[in-house]
């Protein structure tokens, strides 16, 4: 690993001051992705600003909004009593990702900031527009079994690897962000971005900004929910396709529904069309099938990931069915 300078602080103001002062610096919290990227030479910061001791580790339910500090560990969120009781889809999504060790280390903010696991992004001898703009995309026409089918561009077909983020996208979360000019709050679904012609940017966080935390409004999705993850082994593998499904069913009719997917796009992929189709309809297999089908209009595969065109609608139907049938 190329050496770097290191500094730590317990104060938000100092952290923001430092990141704005030093152009080649980067924040480190859990480090589970960043340290790996630095070992591989994919990322070579000159200075790390350790924010793991900043006071952003609270989980609180205030006025029907769940607030989660950005430095809360993934396992602390998944195991939290309020999260388990009121937002169990989030617990299920988090526990579908990584391993127990990594979930103890990884933070909420860090999980959001993790980079794609596209093998060409990790291999510094290969072209990759995300790692090195304008160098080309080796995944298009290469090994692209894990890659995106929605929202791709000619420059990048990588996917965002998080499970937690798929759950947060489904649950209408918001992201609180601090910067030199103060605070701002954006929708979680607007945090990550599609590659377009600037795939080097994973999200809309500006240089010098820091994620403060996540807010999730209360909902009625603690009965009929499911996080379905399809992967090459039964645990500890990235998703080929994953679906977060949440239903509020009254008398057989779907009064509210949320659907989001992982493993299919450069960002957690919210299924707005399917949601608006299902709202107010009966929770039947026929309706689930129709909802899944309409989402496939914009899908485009790249050879090795052609199977996702079939797997995605099946996964949507399966997740909705498991959510509906949850006792």
């Amino acid at each position, binding site marked *: 690993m190329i050496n*770097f*300078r290191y500094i*730590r602080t317990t104060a938000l103001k100092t952290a923001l001051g430092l990141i704005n002062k030093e152009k080649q610096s980067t924040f480190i919290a859990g480090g589970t992705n960043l*340290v*790996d990227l630095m070992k591989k030479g994919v990322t070579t910061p000159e200075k790390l600003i350790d924010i793991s001791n900043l006071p952003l580790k609270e989980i609180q339910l205030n006025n029907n909004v769940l607030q989660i500090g950005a430095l809360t560990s993934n396992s602390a969120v998944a195991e939290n009593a309020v999260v388990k009781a009121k937002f169990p889809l989030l617990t299920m999504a988090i526990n579908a990702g990584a*391993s*127990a060790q990594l979930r*103890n*280390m990884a933070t909420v903010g860090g999980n959001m900031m993790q980079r794609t696991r596209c093998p060409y992004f990790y291999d510094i001898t290969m072209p990759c527009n995300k790692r090195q703009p304008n160098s080309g995309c080796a995944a298009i026409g290469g090994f692209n079994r894990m890659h995106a089918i929605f929202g791709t561009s000619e420059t990048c077909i990588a996917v965002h690897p998080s499970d937690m983020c798929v759950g947060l996208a489904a649950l209408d979360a918001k992201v609180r962000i601090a910067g030199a000019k103060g605070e701002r709050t954006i929708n979680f679904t607007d945090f990550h971005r599609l590659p377009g012609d600037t795939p080097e940017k994973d999200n809309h966080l500006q240089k010098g900004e820091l994620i403060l935390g996540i807010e999730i409004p209360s909902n009625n999705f603690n009965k009929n929910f499911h996080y379905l993850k399809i992967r090459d082994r039964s645990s500890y593998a990235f998703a080929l396709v994953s679906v977060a499904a949440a239903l509020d069913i009254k008398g057989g009719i779907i009064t509210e529904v949320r659907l989001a997917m992982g493993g299919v796009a450069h960002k957690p992929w919210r299924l707005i069309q399917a949601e608006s189709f299902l709202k107010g309809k009966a929770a039947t297999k026929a309706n689930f099938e129709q909802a899944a089908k309409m989402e496939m209009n914009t899908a485009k595969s790249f050879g090795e990931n052609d199977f996702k065109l079939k797997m995605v609608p099946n996964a949507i139907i399966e997740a909705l069915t498991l959510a509906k049938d949850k006792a």
Partner: protein
Amino acid sequence: MSEIENEPHGDTRREFLKKSSLFTALSLTPLAVLKAAENKVDERFAEMFEKIPLNLKVNNKPYQLSVEPRVTLLDLLREQLHLTGTKKGCDHGQCGACTVHVDGQRVNACLSLAVTNEGKNITTIEGLASGEELHPMQAAFIKHDGFQCGYCTPGQIMSAVACIREGHANSKDEIREYMSGNICRCGAYPNIVDAIQEVKEKGEKR
């Protein structure tokens, strides 16, 4: 207490003076002596400009160390403290061979920078037994033949102890899921699960 702790050595005036006086000393030294001292001088340069202080406990023993920021907790344990029980498998957080406990929680030591563990208490496989008496999990791994080559075993055992402590060892399926971060290429999985289940059922806590 200042908000910023442990600012590493930069090119402060004091450092510059140290550096330049060292150069002066070198330029006045006969060539043979200089050659002999070359390596040591290099090391001292590295110390001056790159290492930062680190205080932590390993198996309840306090250490006051000086490390480069790029040193992982795994390399610190193995290379500097010579605690080689913790293994380096993939070095990328994919195999779990390096699993240790940091303040009681299991982590991958290969993905943790040592300097981020300031003030923490690290428990390694060397810290599990009390004297000659094995930890119940160590004894159960032997009883159930929970290994063949043994390379993943320290990580498996550290993970297994945490798995029970976290309350995730209530069935074989749950154990498999919560032990999935520890890969065993010999395939001793069924025996590992048996060992964990027995320790869990006996209610042996430590």
